[in-house]
């Protein structure tokens, strides 16, 4: 076959885009996600132990945050509840959910492993050990509105990843296998320390358990102010490296042939994914499921290309965790990790059953 450049090549990509159902296009999906995010915000602010009418909630937001001239018809207590108690909590949920989803998508891509999640390289056990140490030895230290436990959790997560990275470089296995196995080994070691701390904690065991299951109950504006820059910068950097993530999907050597400085890109991607994870975990505890499942849900709809995947994972992760947190506090403060699994797992199974065309796992 000597098919040269045929005159008037059929515009394949245009044809393909035209044949892609509208609901699968990234812009449509982003619109749906942003709408869900807006609903999550308003509903998350309105409901809780005390319900505030939806109209009032929207009016408070419009009046206080956007400066719209709305007649004040609500009690001052409503304003306090919405702006001082619930808004930081909802924002924290959105930051953590979006960040974990992006970190999970990144880890899955860099490690070329669909089962990877943000915690796979030791962040979870490092953070948990840090937090439990703070429970055992409660020092009255704090920084920037973070308690001692949160600081130790952040440090634990970062140190754990750095340790895994450092140790894996001595591994003689292929770099990815070595990294994953080192992650499991270091994770197990830190988990042993955590178990020891739990045994020794006595009456404080409940505090450690709450950290392990994740909770947004303690979110404050100060914490949002600390976590937001870390998570937002991390997510933006990861989105900026989207094409590197795509190239790594093909394996190290082919990625290098496509112009990637593989070792450097991998460090950048893992470092920022770890930073985002550490910031989320330190403030909210170990919230499971979001980082594993949200990236897959988005991939099932728009495919694995990172340029649409990462921003969409951020939007849907944020909306998902905001809803999950609302469901967690309606019955009176359940750990949010229970809710993410209880609503996430069936939803995920449903999608797996019904998405038959296009991108399947």
């Amino acid at each position, binding site marked *: *076959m000597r098919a040269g450049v045929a005159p008037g090549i059929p515009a394949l*990509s245009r044809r393909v885009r035209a044949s892609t159902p509208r609901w699968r296009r990234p812009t449509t999906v982003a619109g749906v996600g942003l709408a869900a995010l807006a609903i999550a915000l308003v509903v998350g602010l309105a409901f809780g132990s005390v319900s505030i009418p939806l109209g009032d909630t929207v009016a408070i937001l419009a009046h206080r945050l956007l400066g719209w001239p709305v007649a004040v018809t609500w009690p001052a207590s409503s304003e306090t509840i919405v702006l001082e108690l619930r808004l930081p909590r909802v924002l924290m949920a959105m930051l953590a959910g979006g960040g974990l989803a992006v970190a999970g998508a990144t880890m899955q891509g860099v490690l070329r492993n669909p089962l990877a999640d943000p915690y796979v390289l030791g962040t979870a056990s490092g953070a948990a050990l840090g937090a439990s140490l703070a429970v055992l030895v409660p020092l009255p230290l704090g920084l920037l509105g973070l308690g001692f436990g949160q600081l130790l959790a952040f440090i634990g997560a970062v140190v754990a990843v750095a340790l895994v990275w450092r140790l894996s470089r001595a591994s003689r296995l292929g770099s990815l296998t070595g990294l994953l196995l080192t992650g499991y080994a270091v994770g197990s070691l830190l988990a042993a320390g955590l178990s020891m701390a739990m045994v020794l904690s006595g009456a404080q065991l409940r505090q450690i358990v709450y950290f392990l299951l994740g909770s947004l109950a303690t979110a404050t504006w100060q914490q949002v102010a600390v976590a937001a820059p870390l998570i937002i910068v991390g997510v933006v950097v990861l989105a900026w*490296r989207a094409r590197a993530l795509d190239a790594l999907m093909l394996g190290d050597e082919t990625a290098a042939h496509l*112009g990637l400085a593989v070792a450097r890109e991998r460090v950048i991607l893992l470092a920022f994914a770890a930073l985002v994870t550490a910031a989320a975990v330190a403030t909210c505890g170990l919230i499971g499921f979001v980082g594993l499942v949200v990236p897959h849900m988005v*991939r099932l709809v728009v495919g694995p290309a990172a340029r649409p995947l990462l921003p969409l994972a951020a939007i849907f992760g944020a909306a998902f965790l905001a809803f999950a947190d609302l469901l967690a506090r309606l019955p009176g403060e359940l750990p949010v990790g229970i809710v993410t699994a209880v609503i996430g797992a069936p939803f995920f199974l449903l999608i797996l059953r019904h998405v038959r065309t296009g991108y*399947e796992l």
Partner: protein
Amino acid sequence: MSELRLVDVALAYGSRMALAGLDLTVASGERVAVLGPNGAGKSSLLRCATGVMPVSRGTVMLDGVPLAELGREAIARRIAVVPQQVDLPFAIRVEEVVALGRIPHERSFRGPTPLDREIVDEAIHRVGLDAFVGRDARELSLGERQLVLIAMAVAQQARLLLLDEPTVHLDLRHQVQVMDLLADLNDREGLTILAVLHDLALAAHYFPRALLLDGGRLVADGPPAQVLAPERVQATFGVDAAVWMGGARPGV
């Protein structure tokens, strides 16, 4: 321009020498087959030629500039590589894989331009994959996936195309199709082509020049009929074979 020159290139994996001092020039516009038994150093040659594997000794030069002085992205705009096989961790459509070939030309954040899309379409068309557009690349047969990787390399628009056994999983019809495509890219667009092949007959038929490697050394370099002389094939592959160039199709 796309001249590749290797000067005294050696590559050691631990104590094993994969390449033991190779001197070699592939001129711009040439079409060269790399032959040799398993472990002869064929894939190592490709890895050194693209710089993904740093050489233990010697220099690799692209148009007179040592590879070490060029960045990875600059190399990727000038050398495209078709790997033997790629294992994809996620479902991905054929055209999306081909579009990955545009990575060295893209800028961060900005998506593919209409020109990028057109180049991807053209590459798909050229390799004969129109019917596969929209399908999950992981559901294709090994041979079809190999064609997808070739299309990806074509979309990369490099002047030098390196292929690692591009026909190994292909049936006869697709072998001929790929060889015709390579000949066409070489003849009409002047791409320089360096292909590792196991099939001596295909090499003899389609390539004006062949390199025979054995034990990390270049043991013969020239027209396939000379390179594949019976006594040399016996010495390197350990089998009796003869190359005949008569008739419509040479064979081994």
